[in-house]
Every structure is written in C-alpha cells, then in structure tokens.
C-alpha cells in the first residue's frame, strides 16, 4: 500500500480564543463588550497566561464575565473590583490579576477604589469599558455621558451646569505616580480593534514586568440604550465620542515606550 502525503489545502487564520468559554453571551447584538472579551482572551492565549490569570468581575452588563472567560475569577461588590484585585494580587503575587469594569462600576461608585489602587501602585491590570451610559439598568446618565447626550435620566440632554462634565479616566489615572500604563483606545472599526488589542497586550506585559498599575480604557458602544443599530452606534462612537475622549497613550513606561507607542488619531 502506498501512503501519499496530502498537502493541506488551507490554513487556519482566525478562530475563537481558548480563554473564552464556549458559551452564548447575554450581550445585546452588536455590543462591543463581546469584542473586548475576545481581545482580552486572545492576549491571554498569546501570552500563555490562561492558567495563571485571575479575573475580578464587576457589576454592570459585564457582571457575568466570570462565566465568559475561561480563567479563574471572583465577583466583586459593585465598584470594588480594584480593591478585591489588590487583595488577590497581594496573596498571589505570581498570578496575573485583572479587572474588567464598565463606566458605571469604575468611574462612578468605584472611582475611590480605582484611584487608591493606582495611588498605591498596585500591580494589577484594569480593562475599562466606556460606553457613556449605564447599560444594564436601562440607559441612565453615567459620569462618562457626553454633554448634551440624551439618556433616560437626562431626557433633554446632559446639562453640564447641573451635572458637570464627563470624567476622563485615562487622563485622570495617568496623573498618578503609581500608574505605569494608561491609554485610551476605541473599538469602532477593525483597525482600532487591532490597536486596542496591542494596548491590552502591553498592559498585561506591564503587569508581568511588575511595573505598576495599568489601565486600558476602551470606547465602546451600547446600541440598545442609544437606540441605534449596531453599525450606527459604532459611527456614533467615531463621530461623537472620539472628539470628547481623544485616543492616545497618556502614560507608558519608559522601557516600553520605543516599541509600543501608538499614534493619536
């Protein structure tokens, strides 16, 4: 019998990352939470960190992220993910600890925990999803809501004289000495999704090297509560959110600056 070697006729270019559980997510169609989950999972796969990573999940739409990531996880009380991550990282300094938080969780109720984790220079990574609205509770005004943006609790648009201006978390945390890495990225098209992935990779590298607190702010969409189609929502991110939340590297450790510097656009 003659054995014949069969040349493969095609190669695998892209598949679902292993660090993402084989589950159906509860996110609405077109929600970029799913994209952010996938990017983090891809980075964990590429850095081979799946078995050494502990996720601290938050409250909000991302409350079930402990199920969707195939890594060890703990669920924190509302806003307290950075405090919980601090404890986990101090008990397990050899593990990679990251939190996955939305803007209602991190920028509103959890701002104190986040700020103090950065002030203490905790060696954790924060993935921060900014979609300018409270998603899970039905589209109320968040600290990150744009001036003039209509939400269910600001039906005539956000009045900055009454409720203040949106909070810029990446810039805020970059001013703290304990922060090693603070950047803002967007996920509104394929190019920016890939840039976001590079930033997430750098953030985990910062933690691996023990340089300090790292945060990646990701501009995200909420088609349901913005009352748009998914594609319209991504255009809205590009046209309305980018001018208010400029993308860029607000703080990058010197040792990583030469290779990882992203362009502002």
């Amino acid at each position, binding site marked *: 019998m003659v054995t014949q070697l069969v040349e493969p006729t095609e*190669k695998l270019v892209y598949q679902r990352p292993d660090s993402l559980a084989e589950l159906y997510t509860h996110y609405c*169609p077109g929600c970029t939470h799913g994209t952010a*989950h996938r990017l983090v999972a891809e980075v964990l796969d590429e850095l081979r960190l799946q078995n050494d990573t502990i996720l601290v999940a938050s409250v909000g739409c991302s409350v079930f992220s402990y199920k969707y990531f195939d890594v060890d996880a703990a669920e924190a009380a509302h806003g307290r993910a950075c405090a919980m991550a601090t404890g986990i990282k101090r008990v397990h300094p050899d593990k990679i600890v990251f939190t996955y938080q939305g803007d209602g969780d991190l920028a509103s109720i959890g701002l104190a925990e986040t700020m103090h984790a950065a002030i203490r220079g905790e060696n954790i990574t924060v993935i921060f999803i900014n979609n300018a609205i409270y998603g899970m509770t039905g589209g109320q005004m968040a600290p990150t809501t744009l001036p003039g943006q209509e939400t269910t609790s600001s039906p005539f648009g956000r009045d900055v004289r009454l409720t203040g201006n949106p909070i810029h978390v990446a810039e805020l945390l970059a001013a703290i000495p304990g922060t090693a890495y603070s950047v803002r990225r967007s996920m509104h098209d394929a190019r920016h999704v890939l840039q976001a992935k590079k930033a997430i990779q750098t953030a985990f590298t910062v933690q691996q090297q023990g340089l300090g607190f790292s945060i990646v702010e990701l501009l995200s969409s909420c088609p349901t509560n913005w009352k748009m189609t*998914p594609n319209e929502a991504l255009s809205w991110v590009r046209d309305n959110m980018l001018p208010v939340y400029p993308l860029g590297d607000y703080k990058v450790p010197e040792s990583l600056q030469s290779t990882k510097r992203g362009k502002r656009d």
Partner: protein
Amino acid sequence: MATGRIVIDVERCKGCELCLEACPQHVIEMGNFFNGKGYRPAMLVDPRHECTGCALCAVVCPDGCITVYRDVPAPKAQPVLKGVPA
C-alpha cells in the same frame, strides 16, 4: 490574490451585521432563516470565491463566531529533469 473562506457559528451569531460593513469583498449576507435564538445569522455567500481570508469580519465580530481559513496555493509543478535516474 489570496482566497479563503469563513465558517460562521450560526447558533452563536446575533445578526448584528457588523461583519457586513467590515467585509471589503461584500461576500457576507444575512441569512433568510432564524437560528435558535431568533436572530437571522450572517452567511458567507461567495459563488465566485472572492473571499480573501483577510479576517476583518472575525476581528469585528463581538460574539467570536467566525472562523477564517485561507487557501494554501498549490505547489508549482516540479520541472522534469531529463537523464536523472528516478
């Protein structure tokens, strides 16, 4: 031009249509049936084999339900050498 194909997990697709916008070759269309969750899933409609396997659809897919394959070009035929014993 490279060629390829995508495989969409129709039961996980939520029909958000982000891949339709991302596809530079316009070979993705929404299906004419409903999946188990009641969404119309995206489908590869590529009768002329125009998909390049660029994976941009998979990059933007929020549900990670697209797997991308790229064709490996067939090896060129080896020149026949004369006078060389087989």
